[in-house]
């Protein structure tokens, strides 16, 4: 039997390898996200100051909405036979959660890094405080990754994947709020520490909730 982190790493590697094969995130979700970002300037017109104002917010909204798709893709990978297999391999459900959340976080991070330049080109938001942004981006990816994985696990336990967006949308409000307010704070020179702390707290709470609830949720799914 292997240790917790080996199990989590194997789970993440398996999820990422599946993504490389199917290209669901890179070939479907990311292009759709880019189109969504493009539609807003088309609707608003060439009002550059307005676009500059709404740009960061639009970026995070697109990350949130399409991030749900990234998070839910895993519920299609793990059917009942695969879940049974993981249980019978003796893999700690918390390690399964950690691995899945890790893979989803990496995919969301890639999603943000590809769409970021698109948003810069379309909205010209002239962001400031790049070191803080470099911290913000992975924190948001981790928050959405953890939240999406937790929601997918809950949905799996009650056999309804349609519930995932309904669970993710309200719970992601603090993450979205912290991300947009941090960008605004950087732009207007306001303090952002509170918002960063909110993000860190959310990430920690979601990680603890996911790890502690992994076993009961897995058993309830049968």
């Amino acid at each position, binding site marked *: *039997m292997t240790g917790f982190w080996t199990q989590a790493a194997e789970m993440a590697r398996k999820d990422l390898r*599946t993504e490389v094969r*199917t290209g669901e995130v890179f070939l479907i979700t990311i292009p759709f996200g880019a189109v969504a970002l493009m539609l807003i300037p088309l609707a608003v017109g060439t009002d550059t100051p307005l676009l500059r104002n709404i740009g960061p917010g639009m970026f995070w909204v697109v990350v949130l909405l399409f991030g749900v798709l990234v998070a839910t893709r895993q519920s299609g990978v793990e059917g009942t*036979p*695969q879940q*049974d297999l993981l*249980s019978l*391999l003796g893999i700690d459900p918390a390690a399964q959660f950690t691995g899945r959340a890790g893979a989803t976080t990496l995919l969301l991070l890639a999603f943000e890094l590809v769409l970021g330049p698109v948003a810069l080109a379309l909205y010209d938001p002239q962001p400031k405080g790049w070191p803080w942004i470099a911290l913000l981006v992975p924190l948001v990816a981790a928050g959405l990754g953890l939240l999406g994985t937790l929601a997918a696990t809950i949905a799996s336990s009650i056999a309804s994947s349609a519930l995932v967006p309904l669970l993710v949308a309200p719970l992601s409000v603090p993450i979205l709020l912290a991300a947009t307010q941090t960008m605004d704070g950087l732009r207007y020179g306001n303090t952002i520490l509170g918002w960063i702390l909110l993000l860190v707290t959310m990430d920690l709470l979601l990680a603890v909730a996911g790890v502690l609830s992994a076993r009961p949720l897995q058993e309830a799914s049968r």
Partner: protein
Amino acid sequence: MIDPLLYLRAVGVRLGDTPILRGVDLRVGAGEVVGLVGANGSGKTTLLRVAATLLVPTSGEGEVLGAGLTDEARYAIRSRIGLIGHTPALYQNLTLEENTRFVAQLMGAEPGSVGAALDQVGLAGARHRRAIQCSHGMQRRAEFARLLISNPDLVLLDEAHAGLDRHAADLVAFILQGVRSRGGGAMLVSHEHNRMAPLVDRVVELRNGAVGHWEAE
């Protein structure tokens, strides 16, 4: 090895108002292979899932490899149970080799065991094919490779012979022989009684979720 490996006493399972299993008594001893027969919907798959500790019964009691069906200890013995259900538990976008390696790495098995197991089940030439590109029979073979790597003490095979050619059916016999020789046990569901009969020590029939009155010894 604990003996019996599995015993169930008056086990019942209900899904909502529907009884799936009713008062099932069953025992699988060390070195024993039990055949399980019954019509569609008679509860065979549910019984295998109870035996695999994946489903907690709503009534009755029992032990699997020394762990109670509702005890937390059942989590620890799960890795000693090998279940092959009628739907292959493979990741369809991974190759057969990647699927097998995934299991081997999680079980802490030797890296070389993957190639050897795939070779043994006749999949050496198809190891780089994704599961989705393989027939049901090939996917079953890949699952047999998993059992060869994990060497479980209790093997549970659902629809063991479904979709298998003669060579693959020989693998079922080989796996059962292996588990017997190391003092383990097995439960085997099959609708092909001719193929099953030589492999099992006795046959239990399920009728509408209950063990039938005749139990062929």
